[in-house]
């Protein structure tokens, strides 16, 4: 039981990143892989500030700011210098590795001695239940906020930017500025995943972000498959299905591990799993034709 709960909590912690990737990949149709860097950035900022004794709201604000800055940087490189979004993301992500290392000061900071958002908001005896409830609360607030923003006039303009750029410009929307804001929101959300995971695992590590974008992509693809399958139009429900995708992804990995798969193989399994999610619908479609 605890085994599956652990997977669900990790899924929730990573779901903030899932929401961010949903914004870049599905709303703006930009392949943004700044993610690997901004995730670690969020964790690094959190770890250092926790140790310095900052309050949780201040740490959350600092994390959001750091992630948003990383996103703005990718956005500026992409829109101002007209560099391919993929390359812009790689550039910023690579640069962030050094930034993260200098924030952390060393490759790993353990957080066992300091409190966390999970202990601060504890109401149950057993820690896993606290982690679960805090995760649910945090993601509920984030999703509700995001769903609200996406339903406002500004949010409609955001959704239109990735959908029909000629139309958005003709309707008075600065599409470049919109993309920069979108990347800022997405990477701020990713950094918040770093914030949660660092406190959940009780450490921040310089390598914790490697390949994390693939976990996010796979989760969003599961969520997107659910959205299409259930024909969900309401943006708030779509976000909920993205959360479900993030949790489903971690559950599958947990099951793989429980079947005795070597943990060293975990990244390979993640890659194959994402390939399966992307590949199977295409194979099925080809047979249908």
């Amino acid at each position: 039981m605890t085994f599956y709960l652990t997977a669900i909590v990790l899924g929730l912690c990573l779901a903030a990143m899932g929401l961010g990737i949903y914004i870049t990949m599905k709303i703006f149709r930009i392949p943004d892989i700044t993610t690997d860097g901004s995730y670690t950035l969020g964790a690094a900022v959190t770890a250092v500030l926790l140790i310095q004794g900052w309050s949780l709201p201040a740490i959350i604000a600092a994390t959001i700011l750091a992630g948003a800055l990383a996103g703005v940087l990718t956005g500026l490189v992409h829109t101002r210098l007209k560099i391919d979004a993929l390359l812009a993301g790689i550039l910023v992500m690579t640069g962030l590795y050094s930034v993260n290392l200098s924030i952390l000061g060393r490759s790993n900071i353990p957080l066992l001695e300091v409190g966390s958002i999970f202990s601060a908001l504890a109401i149950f005896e057993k820690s896993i239940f606290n982690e679960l409830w805090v995760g649910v609360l945090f993601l509920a607030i984030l999703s509700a906020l995001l769903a609200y923003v996406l339903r406002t006039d500004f949010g409609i303009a955001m959704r239109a930017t990735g959908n029909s750029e000629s139309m958005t410009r003709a309707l008075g929307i600065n599409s470049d500025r919109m993309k920069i804001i979108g990347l800022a929101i997405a990477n701020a959300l990713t950094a918040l995943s770093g914030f949660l995971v660092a406190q959940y695992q009780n450490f921040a590590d310089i390598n914790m972000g490697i390949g994390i974008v693939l976990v996010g992509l796979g989760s969003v693809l599961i969520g997107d498959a659910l959205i299409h399958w259930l024909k969900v139009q309401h943006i708030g429900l779509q976000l909920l299905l993205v959360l479900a995708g993030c949790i489903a992804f971690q559950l599958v990995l947990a099951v793989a591990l429980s079947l005795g798969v070597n943990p060293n193989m975990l990244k390979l399994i993640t890659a194959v799993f994402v390939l399966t999610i992307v590949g199977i619908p295409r194979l099925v479609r080809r047979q249908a034709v």
Partner: protein
Amino acid sequence: MIEFDHIAKIFNRGQVNEVTALRDIQLHIQKGEFLVLLGSNGSGKTTLLNVLAGAILPSKGRLLINGEDVTQLPEYKRSRWVARVFQNPLGGTAPDLSILDNFRLAALRTRPKTLRIGINEAFKKNVREKIAGLGLGLEDKLQQPMGTLSGGQRQALTLLMSVMDHTDILLLDEPTAALDPKSAAVVMQTAEKLIEEYQLTTVFITHNLSESLRFGNRLIQMHRGEIVRDLDAAAKSKLRLQELYGWFD
């Protein structure tokens, strides 16, 4: 209303594939004028429209709208005056967004899009009534994604969207080129009705010669980046289709 002051546009200047799309265009468009723009492919008419919309910045010359110099103003800032219907029915709408969302953005064309939820019952009612006026039976499908509609329906809605907010200038870039004759007729009727109702200054590009005779009160022919013919309403009304064919020999 609109003043092209010695406008020129050269693409790929100094390279082997240098193209002069517009050379020294002098054009004054009066308020309320419905200008039909004719010309073979590559004559520069789409470039002229793009310069007016701000999608392309001219290499030389000045562009004035209502006496204001807008030569360097980007497209998204010109939307204060200009609404646009594209040749491709996909160009003027966002396919994955609902009809209602598309109309909401159109209603804010000249205003900032803020962090408030603008789609309320009054807005829905307004859109429903406006769409019902088209007579296409789309007024009960407001939540449907735009992409599920036919090209003709989307062009008609794009036209309607262009008058959801204050508009001075309407640009029609071959709006019926991708449509079947019946849908084309519906779209042009809608255009004519809206242009009259809202007193819009219109620039209309078409390759359909009978359309060019039926609509508008001024006719311009472009050839190799220059205006070669300019007919006012009286001269245009005397023009016969046979004669018009002769222009393209």
